[in-house]
């Protein structure tokens, strides 16, 4: 009865159609120029490495020693390496592996890190044990650890999943479990700060379950650090993968990856600069595009952020 009078509808146009929360974020995301550019580039790279090999039909392993160390030409748009393998084909093939490894390993590390970080930041009782485990992992010498993992699991995985998938799982696992600690500590710090804010108290007072509080209230507020970890994580996962192959832990040497192409090419910097240019560019572009997408997601989830 009273509503009609004092609270006539405010001077707002009953506006915009109702969107789902996800639709909302997507809408925000689309408005973000950098994010869209990042997405376009990322999709382009993705398409290139997935479809590219069907267009540029040169086998990445095809050796043609007569054509070695060539500068870019029509036959070899990216040039060739010192065994005469076509660089374009290698960059495309390498992209498949690098992207797959980079993204999955990053997601695994991010998942572990966020999980540990949130749990130890939020639950005081878990904080001590989890953070000490984090300390332990930070302190473990990486190389021996990798060698042990390799020794223990490689043959089993190879037997169960075949050489390639087995190695893929192994690499993702190895990178994942050795790179979650930074994220964990950063997230924990953020969680400690966020959880002391009053809206968490308010959520508790309405009887929210802890894990819902974590998901709906804590996580969105620590998202920006997680996003940064994610972008940096992709880059380091791609590089780490190449480092692993020097321990014999990576993919067999006839499987090119961006990191390895870059490493192998480094010595040929003066002879055939295109050998390092392309894989380097590919890594940087991927990381940049992921970075911009991360920015856009961050901004889309931050109602106060400057929309671009």
């Amino acid at each position, binding site marked *: *009865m*009273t*509503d009609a*009078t*004092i*609270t006539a*509808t*405010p*001077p*707002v146009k*009953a*506006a*915009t159609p*109702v969107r789902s*929360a996800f639709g*909302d974020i997507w809408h925000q995301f689309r*408005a973000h120029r950098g994010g869209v550019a990042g997405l376009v580039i990322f999709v382009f790279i993705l398409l290139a490495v997935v479809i590219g090999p069907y267009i540029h039909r040169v086998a990445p392993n095809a050796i043609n020693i007569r054509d070695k160390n060539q500068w870019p030409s029509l036959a070899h748009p990216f040039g060739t390496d010192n065994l005469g393998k076509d660089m374009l084909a290698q960059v495309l093939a390498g992209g498949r592996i690098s992207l797959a490894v980079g993204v999955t390993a990053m997601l695994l590390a991010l998942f572990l890190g966020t999980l540990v970080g949130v749990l130890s930041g939020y639950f005081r009782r878990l904080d001590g044990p989890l953070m000490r485990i984090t300390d332990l992992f930070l302190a473990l010498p990486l190389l021996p650890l990798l060698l042990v993992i390799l020794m223990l699991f490689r043959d089993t995985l190879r037997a169960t999943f075949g050489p390639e998938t087995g190695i893929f799982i192994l690499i993702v696992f190895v990178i994942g479990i050795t790179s979650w600690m930074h994220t964990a500590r950063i997230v924990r710090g953020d969680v400690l700060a966020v959880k*002391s*804010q*009053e*809206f968490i*108290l*308010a*959520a*508790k*007072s*309405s*009887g*929210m*379950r*802890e894990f*819902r509080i974590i998901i*709906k*209230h804590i996580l*969105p*507020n620590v998202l920006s650090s997680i996003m940064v970890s994610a972008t940096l994580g992709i880059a380091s996962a791609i590089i780490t993968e190449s480092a692993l192959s020097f321990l014999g832990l990576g993919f067999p040497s006839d499987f090119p990856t961006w990191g390895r192409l870059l490493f192998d090419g480094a010595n040929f910097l003066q002879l055939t600069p295109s050998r390092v240019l392309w894989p380097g560019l590919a890594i940087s572009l991927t990381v940049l595009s992921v970075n911009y997408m991360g920015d856009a997601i961050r901004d889309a*989830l*931050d*109602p*106060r952020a*400057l*929309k671009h």
Partner: protein
Amino acid sequence: MLLSGNSMEASGGSVTPVLSVKNLSTSFRVNDEWRTVVRNISFDVAPRETVAIVGESGSGKSVTSLSIMRLLPKNSSRIEGEVFLNGRELLSLPEEQMRQVRGNEISMIFQEPMTSLNPIFPIGKQIAEALTVHKDISKADAKAEVVRLLEKVRIPNAKSRYDEYPHQFSGGMRQRVMIAMALASKPKLLIADEPTTALDVTIQGQILDLIKLLQEEEGMSVLFITHDMGVVAEVADRTIVMYRGDAVETGETGDIFHRGKHPYTRALLSAVPRLGSMGDRRLPLRFPIIDIKTGEQQPLADVTDTVAKGKTPILDVKDLTTRFDIHSGLFGRKSGAVHAVEKVSFNLFEGETLSLVGESGCGKSTTGRSVTRLITPTSGDVTLDGYEVMKLDQSTLRQMRRSIQMVFQDPFASLNPRMSVGSAVMEPFIEHSLGTKQQARDKAASLMEKVGLSADMMRRFPHEFSGGQRQRVAIARALMLDPKVIVADEAVSALDVSIKAQVCNLLLDLQQSLNLAFLFISHDMAVVERVSHRVAVMYLGEIVEIGPRAAVFENPQHPYTKKLMSAVPVPDPSRRRIKRNMSTDEIKSPIRPVNYVPPKREYREVSHGHVVQVG
């Protein structure tokens, strides 16, 4: 009418105004379109003059003041018009010069003190900054000055609280910190946005006196935004009435009060509750609702007695004690404790409203949080709806919380900034799986409308609301679960009279239909008088007087209660500029040394259920 000559002069225009606002319009970008929330506002503020802006919650008062200060987010807001400060146009001033103006020539008290204070700096430092930014002043001098200011705004133990952080302060104390910060630089113009909402009437009176004093001594002008018509009547020379982004009426306060022309003005004034208007009614009374267009009052439905005495109380609190340790020194040794709540006992029956009143910082919010175990009390027993609150494990605690809901004193801080208010309101409902998402949305929408917001605001985020709107969101959220008890901590303090009336009526309706019990924490004695069955008066962490509303209001026994009753401002402009001379008494502090043993208290029953602390 003592000093009215002053204001006559000002409004007469013979003196150049300190502040002159011309055709100010402000818009926000929401969902890619510009929405104007302040439209073509013009007004002047003369030297030494106090101009009040009153108006509906969400009508653009805060936005107006922020526009003058140019403090709105640059990328999502647009300000048009002109603002002159002593003849200088502010809106086109270069940023650096504008900075010189802020805090120096104009300072501002923000509406929400919790979020407006930097959480990681000691409050002393934050106030001192206001001094050191514009003046060449030594650290020690600044500190001394800050302590003096803190004492002026009646913060007890000012020296030792200099180094404390905002979260260790009560709502009202934070507000006073904001006030001290704004007054520190002795500005030419003070913009005060709801500066006293969280203050009890005694301290409010002292603060108002302080402002008046500064006006006289320093020639400060004041732009005062408030919902409290009593305060307006007391301080304002002239008054501007805002309604939905427009200034609908401007004039001498007296004129506005007695001869308001706009229907909203009239509606506003006739809804103002007056202390003592309840007579000898035992039960709460609905607020009259006036139609803005016709100015007619709708008939009041009577309330029935909802209190189910005889049954066991739904909330029973015994000897509740909550203390906050104070650490000091290099090694953080415990050097004392804030005895925020000390042996508090009371009960609350179904369908009953118990109001908790008392000085700012006396422990009301802490009591409210302790009974819901959001703070772990030091000792005491709380029984709520059959639950032994102090002994519950996590999952039963969660179930228990369905029965008791809280409206936090600081609505902005209690809303997740990254969650739309719709989700925030729906969340508890979904969490306790009381229905489908659609049901949740429908219920939330209807509650939003009931508290005077529109359902399509649900997609907005907390920062896009006005203070009062956020408060209503918080109320809607608390109502989502149909709890048995609601702890309403200053739940209506930021609402203008008309909406306050509407919301209070809503609460009463719910009490009628659902037999809700309220623990109603408020400083607004007029509202307390209208809505409560019983009243408890707190002082320094203890309940000093408790009893049926009529008994306590008509026959206050404890000296503090008496003082409180006498300090309530009266919405009568003719009483303007009368000094109370109360600020000389000593400020008592709840901080005790480590080995402090609280004295044994004795109580005397005045009449049935009316108990007073003695000695």
